[in-house]
């Protein structure tokens, strides 16, 4: 298999396999015909920590739009809404991950996929472009992690 890309989050590497595409909402997308399989990127998992709870606001059969909020994740370090980068029909939600969210931490690029959507890929990033996106947003992410984003920066002086 081709060597994955690595984005360094401080001292922690986020491994990004090159056999798939990525979205700015920090999901990987594996395209097979008109079926797209989505999962969290290593970057997302690293920010969130140990997965505790996953909640979908969509079900199999639902039609979703790109950018639509489709779920919610709660992990040891953070929580987040989950946004779909693609539009189409939700084919399947991964039941195994719903019942065992911790699988995302151990097997994020394989068995711990999140959902499958039937539709046309749009606006996805090649691994190299995703790394560029991570580089560009990393300062913001760091401020968010340090609890400084949205706060008056002069408070910390």
């Amino acid at each position, binding site marked *: 298999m081709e060597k994955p890309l690595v984005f360094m989050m401080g001292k922690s590497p986020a491994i990004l396999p090159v056999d798939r595409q990525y979205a*700015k909402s920090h999901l990987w997308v594996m395209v097979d015909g008109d079926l797209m399989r989505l999962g969290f990127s290593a970057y997302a998992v690293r920010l969130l920590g140990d997965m505790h709870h996953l*909640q979908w606001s969509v079900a199999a059969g639902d039609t979703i739009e790109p950018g639509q909020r489709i779920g919610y994740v709660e992990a040891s370090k*953070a*929580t987040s809404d989950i946004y779909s980068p693609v539009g189409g029909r939700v084919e399947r939600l991964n039941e195994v991950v719903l019942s065992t969210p911790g699988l995302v931490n151990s097997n994020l690029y394989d068995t711990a996929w999140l959902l499958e959507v039937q539709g046309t890929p749009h606006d996805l990033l090649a691994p190299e472009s995703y790394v560029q996106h991570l580089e560009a947003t990393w300062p913001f992410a760091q*401020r968010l992690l340090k609890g400084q*984003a*949205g706060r*008056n920066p002069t408070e910390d002086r």
Partner: protein
Amino acid sequence: MSETLSVILSEPRPGDAERQQLVASLSSGLTSRTTVDLTVIPHLYDLEPSGSTMQFLRETPGPMIVVCWLQPRAAFWTLRVSDVEGRFANEETGPDDTRRPIWCLGVVPGATDKTILDEVDRIIGGEPPLQAAVQVDSITPKRREEKIRERWYPVIDRDRCSGCLECLNFCLFGVYGTDTHDDILIEQPDACRPGCPACSRICPEGAIMFPQHDDPAISGDAEASLTELKLDLSQLFSGADATTLAATERDHALSEMKADKKTDQLDSLVDELDDLDI
């Protein structure tokens, strides 16, 4: 205390064999104590305020121990939501508080039948007079039957709530309302989105609990709820690019600074962000 004390034992939600086993063991241990007047009820959190079990709890007089599958603080305020009067006896409330004491013992991680029975004995005081084994087997504890369904709704710690109404403004599902005094009211508890603990996170006082949530900071752990609130990364995960994120960050900072009327700092912040050139 020599008279009998009302002990309420809440069953777990169905499907957990280990918890069912613990309840059976607790039920037998409590029944064997002549100082205990035991009643087994369905899962406390799932009970409707208008249901017969909450009615029974409201009408049960005197001190009470409630053993249930919730953090003690969450259990107490779940009772108070249904107007079961009393004071949270797990904590000292002062000599002037004449309300009847309600002790809430949570079957939380680390608790065993022994730790819970020991705590019951400690509250009652002294060694419990046990009934003969042969009698115990023949005693079936009183049981309240009520058809319930799994619920998900916020429980407010009224001692912590400052009445800021952040939750009312934040919730998208119409769960909250206010009474005639503008005090927060859980108007439509069952409109709450199952699994969503968002209002609990934004509450500045750590007053909102979701007792069935996995995170102790949300489910009512008294310490964790004030210290362990997590980051919300939704903004970062929305798929926004660097420019949008920076603009959002700036707008947020600007609005906060405007509120503070710190215009000199505002200018320097704008310059700083312009210099970043992203």
